[in-house]
């Protein structure tokens, strides 16, 4: 009996401390839900950080939830259904599947929760068929990022390379666009041959295994384009295991910290940087605008940048730091000069 009483007391205490967090709707602080693909990837951790900063600044409560595995659309759908029940005023989501997620978005629409799509686009046709309207898309242009990587490869190899490609999960809009961008950029250069292109499903260990197998089959590979840095880092390990460190040019995507270290050390060639924390920030800002019935543009582009060894020299690092800290100037002109 005593035990039961103690348990009730504990539960009661827990509930009062928890309720402080959840009774936000009564105090007029709007709640924005942010559903990520996963939280076991630095990219999404950064995105959450940016989103949280914006939420704190704008005085909204942020509810961040993610599936355990990046490809688990069904779990993401459950999370969306559950968050709708808590009466959130806006939903920011990074879809695990461009088409599959539409079923979840239909539920948000029925509950009249405005939708902000982040990072991965929703399939336009599937959304139109289901009558789902999204407020805006926040993300970087993955196709453009793939092009940046391809053009850089052409430049550093002098137009002669035998390339192995590590793809993301097949059917993923993000990876497919990067791949198309890269292929389009190298297509016009006859000296560049893509000798192998295999999915490594965004993962580091699979990047290792798949690239190790590629090296077995094509020992003459001299360049790698990986659609994400985790796969690129896996490939770096495989290259090291084969004793060919530095002999194969690896270009990745995402500019993770580990990748930047590898670029600075000269074992990796370059990586296309996205700015996930800016995506998170822009998404929450748009959500707040939508809640306040202010207009938002249908497409919010977040900048991309090619990180190379040159850029990671101490002087350049300092410059980038100052830029990021202070001048949040639109640098579209500068970016376009780099791309040419």
């Amino acid at each position: 009996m005593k035990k039961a009483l103690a348990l009730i007391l504990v539960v009661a205490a827990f509930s009062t401390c928890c309720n402080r967090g959840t009774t936000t709707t009564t105090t007029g602080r709007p709640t924005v839900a942010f559903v990520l693909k996963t939280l076991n990837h630095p990219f999404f951790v950064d995105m959450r950080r940016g989103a949280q900063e914006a939420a704190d600044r704008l005085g909204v409560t942020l509810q961040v939830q993610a599936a355990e595995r990046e490809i688990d659309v069904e779990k993401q759908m459950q999370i969306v259904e559950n968050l709708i029940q808590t009466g959130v005023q806006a939903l920011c989501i990074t879809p695990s599947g461009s088409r599959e997620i539409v079923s979840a978005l239909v539920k948000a629409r029925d509950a009249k929760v405005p939708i902000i799509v982040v990072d991965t686009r929703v399939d336009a046709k599937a959304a139109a068929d289901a009558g789902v309207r999204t407020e805006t898309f926040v993300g970087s242009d993955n196709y453009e990022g793939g092009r940046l990587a391809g053009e850089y490869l052409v430049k550093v190899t002098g137009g002669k390379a035998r390339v192995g490609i590590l793809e993301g999960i097949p059917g993923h809009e993000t990876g497919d666009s990067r791949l198309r961008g890269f292929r389009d950029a190298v297509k016009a250069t006859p000296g560049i041959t893509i000798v192998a292109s295999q999915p490594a499903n965004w993962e580091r260990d699979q990047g290792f295994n798949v690239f190790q197998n590629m090296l077995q089959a094509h020992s003459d590979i001299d360049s790698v384009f990986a659609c994400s840095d985790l796969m690129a880092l896996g490939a770096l390990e495989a290259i090291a295991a084969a004793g060919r460190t530095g002999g194969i040019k690896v270009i990745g995507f995402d500019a993770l910290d580990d990748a930047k270290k590898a670029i600075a050390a000269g074992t990796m060639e370059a990586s296309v940087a996205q700015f996930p924390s800016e995506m998170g920030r822009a998404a929450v800002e748009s959500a707040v605008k939508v809640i306040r019935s202010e207009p938002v543009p249908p497409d919010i582009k977040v900048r991309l940048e090619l990180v190379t060894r040159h850029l990671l020299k101490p002087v350049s690092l300092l410059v980038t730091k100052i830029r990021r800290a202070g001048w949040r100037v639109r640098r579209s002109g500068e970016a376009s000069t780099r791309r040419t």
Partner: protein
Amino acid sequence: MIIASSAAPPGARSVDAMAPPTSRAHRLLLPARQFGTVIGLVALCAVLWILTPHFLTVSNLLNVAEQTSINAIVAVGMTFVILSAGIDLSVGSIVAIAGVVLGTALQAGQPLVVALALGVATGFACGLANGALISWGGLPPFIVTLGTMSIARGAALLFTEGRPISGFDAGFRVLATGRAGFVPAPVIVMGIVYAAAHFVLTRTTFGRYVYAIGGNEEATRLSGVPVRFHKTMIYGVSGLMSATAAVILTARLNSAQPIAGMMYELDAIAATVIGGTSLMGGDGTLGGTLVGALIMGVLRNGLNLLGVSSFLQQIVIGGVIVVAVLLDTVLKRRNRT
């Protein structure tokens, strides 16, 4: 215990049936053991009701039931298998392959009935293959289903070239989006599946043999029961259930994915075991499994509503599985002495 109370074949001896004669303490503790999981579910709901105002609403409870339905249906097959002292690790992959066969048939313009039949038949065939290898090949269920888990997944990926098949017409999607009154269609399917499976398990010879094989396979065989045939059918049932879950999953996501259903085997095993079915076989009920699946569904839903971090959620769910089985084991041990 259930066996002793109904007409059981001579060979049917569950673990409990071998326990010493009924004592007073035994009779008192029996309900606690039977209803332990129900009490757990009610307690969990009560805690969530106190913690969040969003939990105990009709729309949220229907939401939980709908989300639970897929795991609950897969867990029906898993309960049959575990009752017979086996294990089926291939259920998640069978969900995937049955789903892509169904999806492909639908997109090829086959009539709904034909597509459904093809999908379900695929699942059933995979299950039968498992069962045949286990009973006639004499291989351990763990190894066989581990193998088919990989084979079926690979086949699903090969079949679709790794790409999801999306976009079906409303006539099929009714299976997930439809409602009878206010009850979502997946919940109705779940209800029908449980009613039918419960009938099979408790009122048919096949059902009694499931318990008998799990209780003592050798004794069952010596009693003249065609054990091999029945074991094959048990895995067939598991495949059938996975295929049924695949139908709902495909309709729900409006997409058949070759990577669908990963880790479903663990969720189904967890639901079965939380529901009080013994991994040693011969002891357990479908009602328990349903409650087990609901506990997992309510837990996931509640943790989402509370905004608990997804890392902490995994810890809580793992903890609940261990505690549930621990309680069950303790109660069982007391029952015996």
